[in-house]
């Protein structure tokens, strides 16, 4: 399996830029294993990313890779997918990238149900710029820009995606790497907009400041706080308060955007007799 | 400069004046002349002041805006108040007296006609008052021929409204015939 993962990496780009204990590599590996399992032709596979630590992942992958501007990965990806629907497009974003500066693109990609698979690396912080709070930093936690504790409520990415119209929504943590891989596979197979939230650790920018220990201890925190969808069904809201529900959270049916546009083409050509 | 005619069609948004300007310019082009149509409107799509300008010339038209019009059509009181004084001496001021009750002092020759009212009563739809006005304007000035104007109207209106619009044009020419004055060369 390792060699299969390696074959999709631009290993000449290593060592990577991520800090010791960072979970981003685990998400990257899960994505590569998922693409391997999906059997996608690397030449027809596109990985688009935004700006931030996680978005550097695109550069390490031996596919058609596009590292865009902050927050805009989904908009670039929309252009690629609409222009060439035959390409398989994955979009890698961080939590701030996807839901703060890119929040508008996120809800509209979901609303269109365009066939993209979005993977959000949620480390609860802006890591690359050194630990400022993001829309996913839990209330009360500390960040360089919230030295007295964060007073903002955080988004629930899954609820946001579902409410905006995504047709596949799932969540896993880097501790549950195998589950993450399976969820990415299922998301990619969904003909529509799929969102997979990957809870990942940033020991340097977030964990240290919030006394969560090193990378390993943060992985164990993920293990302790994660409950599966099935377990969660039997728990009270009170019991679920500090838990992370993992697994397939939502599956829906809706027309896919590029398929709908194909119908527009047929209608237009019929009308104009072309 | 070669012989040039300048038209200003003014009124309220929704009266179809820009379409009328486009049709007039289209007709001129069909006659092998040069034409420019420019417009100005308020931000609201309906009800605000609206103005279409058309320049028809045998020669090249550099400056695309009307300087001093030979012909002004005013289909609202506001438009009449604003533009009646800015007509070339001896030019034509065509007034829709359905809406223009006070005709301002002007050095132009004034033709006050119940354009919107007759569109409503004789064609059945006030909406086509712009086409009636075009018929009057062409009938009075001879700027474009009736045949090319008909062609131009047909090329620019929605399908299914042909007979309504041709009837409106006919009414316009008929109203113009009651005045036998031609625009001076």
């Amino acid at each position, binding site marked *: 399996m390792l060699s299969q993962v390696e074959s999709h990496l631009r290993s000449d780009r290593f060592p990577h830029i991520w800090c010791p204990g960072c979970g981003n590599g685990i998400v990257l590996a899960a994505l590569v294993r998922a693409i391997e399992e999906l059997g996608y032709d690397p030449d027809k596979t596109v990985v688009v990313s935004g700006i931030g630590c996680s978005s550097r992942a695109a550069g390490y992958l031996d596919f058609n890779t596009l590292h865009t*501007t902050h927050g805009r990965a989904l908009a670039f990806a929309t252009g690629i997918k*609409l222009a060439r629907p035959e390409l398989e497009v994955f979009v890698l974003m961080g939590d701030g990238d996807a839901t703060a500066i890119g929040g508008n*693109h996120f809800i509209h990609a979901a609303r269109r149900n365009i066939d993209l698979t979005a993977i959000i690396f949620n480390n609860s912080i802006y890591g690359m710029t050194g630990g400022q709070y993001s829309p996913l930093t839990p209330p009360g936690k500390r960040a360089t820009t919230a030295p007295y504790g964060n007073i903002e409520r955080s988004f629930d990415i899954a609820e946001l995606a579902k409410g905006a119209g995504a047709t596949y929504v799932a969540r896993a943590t880097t501790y549950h790497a195998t589950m993450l891989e399976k969820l990415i596979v299922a998301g990619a197979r969904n003909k529509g907009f799929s969102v997979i939230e990957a809870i990942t650790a940033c020991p340097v920018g977030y964990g240290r400041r919030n006394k969560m220990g090193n990378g390993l201890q943060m992985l164990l925190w993920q293990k302790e706080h994660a409950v599966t969808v099935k377990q969660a069904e039997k728990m009270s809201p009170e019991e679920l308060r500090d838990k992370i529900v993992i697994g397939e959270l939502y599956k829906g049916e809706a027309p896919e955007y590029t398929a709908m*546009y194909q119908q527009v*083409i047929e209608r237009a050509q019929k009308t104009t007799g072309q | 400069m070669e012989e040039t005619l300048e038209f200003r069609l003014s009124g309220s948004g929704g009266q179809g004046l820009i379409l009328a300007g486009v049709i007039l310019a*289209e007709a001129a082009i069909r006659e092998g002349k*040069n034409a420019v*149509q*420019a*417009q100005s409107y308020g931000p609201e799509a309906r009800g605000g002041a609206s103005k279409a300008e058309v320049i028809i010339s045998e020669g090249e038209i550099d400056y695309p805006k009307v300087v001093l019009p030979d012909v002004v059509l005013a289909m609202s009181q506001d438009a009449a108040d604003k533009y009646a004084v800015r007509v070339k001496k001896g030019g034509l001021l065509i007034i829709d007296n359905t809406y223009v009750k006070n005709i301002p002092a002007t050095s132009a020759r004034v033709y006050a006609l119940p354009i919107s009212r007759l569109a409503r009563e004789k064609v059945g739809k006030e909406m086509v008052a712009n086409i009636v006005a075009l018929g009057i304007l062409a009938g009075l000035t001879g700027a474009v021929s009736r045949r090319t104007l008909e062609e131009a109207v047909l090329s620019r209106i929605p399908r299914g409204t042909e007979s309504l619009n041709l009837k409106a044009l006919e009414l316009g020419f008929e109203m113009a015939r009651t005045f036998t004055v031609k625009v001076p060369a």
Partner: protein
Amino acid sequence: MMSDVVEMARLMQGNEAVVEGALAAGVRFYAGYPITPSTEIAELMAERLPALGGKFIQMEDEIASMAAVIGASLAGVKALTATSGPGFSLKQENIGFAAMAEIPCVIVNVQRWGPSTGIPTAPAQGDVMQARWGTHGDHPVIVLCPASVREAYLLAIRAVNLSEKYRVPVILLMDEVIGHMRERVVLPRAKEVEVIERKKPSVEPKDYYPYRPGDDGVPPMASFGEGYRYHVTGLVHDEKGNPTTDPQVAESLLLRLHRKIYDHLDDVVSVEGYQLEDAEVTVVAYGAAARSAKRAVKEARAAGIKAGLLRPVTIWPFPEKEVAELAGRVRHIIVAEMNLGQLKGEVERAVRGRVGVSGVNRVNGELITFEEILSAIREVALDAQSG
């Protein structure tokens, strides 16, 4: 619907001409956001593109529109977007991305009165500098400026061609007057239209360096999905496309981005002269203002004044050579523009004090008149007589 072969004289709007020109040049993707006075371009693209098997999408904002256009172009489809000043500002970061990653794309800016929301329906030429320097950092860009409906068609084609040839964002800088006016046009036959395609790699994928330039300074470009798997980033990158902070790589990349445009000024820059041979006073004007200037020059000539017009068609790179050349033979230059002197500064820079330069400026949301330009010409002529 008109076929691609258009030879009959027809009444056409400037914005419509942009669409027809873009389609003739092979544009098959449009992403945009509605904004006055450019919206007709989006509306007509929405109707025309799918009929040609192309794609139109109305994005959630201006930023996303620019991003989608770049994405589509990278996927191998010629792409264009249209906007006006406020939207143009929002697009700037991604225009910079396109300049850095060398992704061909065309941005139409139908200028309106600003700053801010200003007068959305009124013409102005206030974005001359934004078009050149709107995005951060040093970056190359080409800006073309049509003065008629027919030229809007021709320059839309040229914008697409230059963008593909040099892998650079090209801005078609219109104004409300040219965008909205309708006039008689006779368009060239489809087969007379020169269409340039981007240079493709001729090597095997393993030997492909996506940012290794050819002799012209422009690297061959593979589309995503064609078997050349490579990395595209807005970070400083080496010839492989991989990010680096190496000062030497950074400098040579930036210099190449400039060189690929500035080494080809003969191809990129064009101006139109009118009555320049014996002109003593010359008006420099572009876009709609050039229409007023031409009439002013005609009337000045009729009054016995030796006036001429130099109209930059390419305004960036600024036609420095062509303007400098004027300085040797005219008595005075009048720059007529609908801003407070954005291009006048460039004219002054080009003539280096060898000839007087003055401005005729109108910033009230109306087209600059030929009368005010004519009176400036008369003043100069009178000064010359008395001096």
